[in-house]
């Protein structure tokens, strides 16, 4: 694993973090270090945020580098621009760490082209649940501002899945990173974490010369707390999904709308297998099942969909929580999938979005695994 960088550029002391970040992004555009930047912006009605790819630096004044909510996964926004291949434009994308991790996973699935893309992360305190924010956007803005001002990375208002997230800061795959979690002197750093990141710094005339160990220690403290919370929460989630009956009870409100899958950045299939005719058709089979059991719940396969989706995408799940936000019946989908993902990824010593070069486990094999299969076959034959 790559070692965390210990040096950064000191970029602000008294300015609002938003202005400081926007200043840097402007510099990137001005110096032609990048051609466009992808940032969240508040929509005209002021009741949500959208991803805007900005070329005209004047538009950047409206950018909100750390939005209180995550209505659309940044990886999905980037994918919509680059899934058809490498863009001629050099793009810098400022995203939450989980969005960057999803981007890395999508690049492994050929849904994002990372050539010419600079990934910029920041210390993410978590996002507010969409439902809470939509009830009163101004209140949500105020709440999130308070969180950032007080560096309250343990706030109770953030999404449940954010509370157990321990990958909320600089990632091995970040090119650049803004330290929102700063010290009492309001010092914010910009850390370069890759050759590309270093090049950008150079092009905007900056040099990483300050040590950031105080920041790194602070982050580690939060990480430890979050990890402990995660452990506790996972013990509860385990009870919700272990065994068919608990699974059934947990998903008893599911209406089969598949909106978790629509919102999920990893579920990129144009048509989900579970929406295909292999699953939906066949009256004869439906009748047969109904007759065998006396009754059958409709629409069918609601649990199979959940289990199927787990097996399809949990190796790449980044626990961003968009599924829970999108669920019309308030099932804690994200925490459940996060728990399952934690365990499936552990099986392969894999961590989603952590490493660009590491292939998704099911897309590769190791020689000794083939040997294992050979033994199984031989056993079966004997």
């Amino acid at each position, binding site marked *: 694993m790559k070692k965390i960088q210990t040096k950064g550029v000191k970029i602000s002391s008294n300015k609002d973090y938003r202005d400081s970040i926007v200043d840097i992004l402007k510099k990137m555009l001005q110096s032609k270090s990048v051609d466009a930047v992808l940032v969240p912006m508040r929509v005209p009605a002021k009741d949500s945020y959208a991803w805007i*790819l900005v070329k005209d630096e004047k538009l950047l004044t409206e950018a909100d580098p750390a939005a209180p909510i995550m209505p659309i996964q940044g990886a999905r926004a*980037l994918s919509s621009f680059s899934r058809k291949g490498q*863009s001629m434009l050099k793009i810098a994308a400022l995203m939450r760490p989980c969005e960057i991790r999803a981007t890395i996973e999508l690049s492994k699935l050929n849904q994002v082209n990372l050539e010419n893309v600079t990934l910029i992360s920041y210390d993410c305190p978590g996002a507010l649940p969409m*439902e809470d924010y939509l009830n009163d956007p101004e209140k949500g803005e105020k709440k999130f501002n308070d969180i950032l001002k007080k560096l309250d990375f343990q706030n109770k208002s953030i999404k449940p899945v954010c509370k157990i997230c321990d990958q909320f800061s600089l990632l091995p795959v970040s090119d650049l990173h803004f330290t929102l979690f700063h010290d009492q002197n309001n010092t914010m750093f910009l850390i370069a974490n890759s050759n590309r990141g270093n090049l950008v710094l150079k092009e905007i005339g900056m040099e990483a010369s300050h040590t950031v160990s105080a920041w790194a220690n602070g982050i580690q403290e939060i990480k430890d707390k979050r990890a402990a919370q995660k452990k506790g929460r996972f013990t509860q989630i385990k009870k919700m999904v272990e065994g068919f009956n608990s699974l059934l009870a947990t998903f008893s409100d599911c209406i089969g*709308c598949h909106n978790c899958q629509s919102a999920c950045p990893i579920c990129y299939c144009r048509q989900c297998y579970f929406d295909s005719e292999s699953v939906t058709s066949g009256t004869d089979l*439906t009748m047969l099942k109904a007759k065998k059991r006396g009754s*059958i719940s*409709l629409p069918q396969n609601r649990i199979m969909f959940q289990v199927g989706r787990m097996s399809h995408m949990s190796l790449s799940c980044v626990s961003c929580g968009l599924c829970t936000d999108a*669920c*019309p019946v308030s099932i804690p989908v994200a925490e459940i999938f996060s728990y399952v993902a934690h365990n499936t990824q552990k099986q392969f010593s894999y961590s989603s979005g952590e490493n660009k070069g590491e292939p998704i486990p099911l897309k590769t094999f190791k020689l000794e695994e083939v040997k294992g299969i050979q033994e199984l076959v031989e056993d079966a034959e004997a």
Partner: protein
Amino acid sequence: MDQVLTIKKSTEAGLIDLLTYLLKNKKVSGVCSLRKTKKQGKFDYALITDPELLHDVVPLHPLMPVNAGKMLSNMIKMEMPVAAVIKPCELRSFIELVKRSQGKLENFLLISYTCGGALPLTATVENKVDTMLPDYGKTVAAGNEFEHIREICKACEYFVPFNADATVSLLGETGADSTCKIFLHSDKAKEILQGFEVEKTEDEFDRTGYDQIRERRKKYKEELFKQIKIQDTGLDGMIDVFGRCIGCHACSRVCPICYCVLCDFESSTYDYDNTIMEQELSRKGGLRLPSDTILYQIGRLSHMSFSCIGCGQCTEVCPSDIPVSVIFRKCGEKVAEIFEYIPGRDVNEQVPVTIFKEEEFEEIGEE
């Protein structure tokens, strides 16, 4: 002339008797109805073949976990009909699907009822159904509006079913506690229920008997429609209303009319080449990603709004709390008016945009 069955039991118990008769005597191959699940306060739709399991059904519960019209359309091939108890709007959506070859009427004995409106999904999620039901029942029996039903239901004037084989009288039925009244309209219903031995009389189902309720609903609808001002504000208004749309397409996924296996707006048509997007970016200085948020909404409006039956599922599932169903009903009604079309009224009435009349060509010539 309709045949009226009168059963000296509560409306629900009477209807369950009828369903039990059908299943026990193999008059139908199954019963499709809402039922209680094992988990207290939770309900689902089920296809039931074992008459013993009918004691769990709650056919008249004001719930719509999914639009049953969409559900029935999946049952294409059947030897014997299934008796389905569904809401008038679910029945209307099924009729719209039948027009599109997505379902077969002969596969079902369609039982519907005069509907007092459905509760939002949150009622089930928050476990409020059981506590709300007694009040709901009383309010509906008195012909009044239950305050917690879906907004779009309060604005629904088609609460008396079209095309049902049988109609259970519920709305304004003061004797619902002790008497179950079921009107059999079709020959199919009368024939299937020939051996069902209950009090049978001849009477005409009085569709006009609900004028007061209809007027109240119409008034509410006008108020609700007034809140949507897109027609005055053009594209800016669209951006204001749909700006927070996240493009999840949940509205189309639960919509009974949107039957496409793959929605056009999810097809590769809208995967633009970088060059096209780069041009747009240069022209505007900024580009929303993913794009086509408004295009999707306008597209869906033009694809299906004239067939929108106002079930409200789209609003229920929208993660951005956009009042989708009010917008689609308002727009759809205007379009349907031009064609004197009421979605789901008559299975022989063809979907406006799928047919043309010769005089329409003359009009185009004149213009």
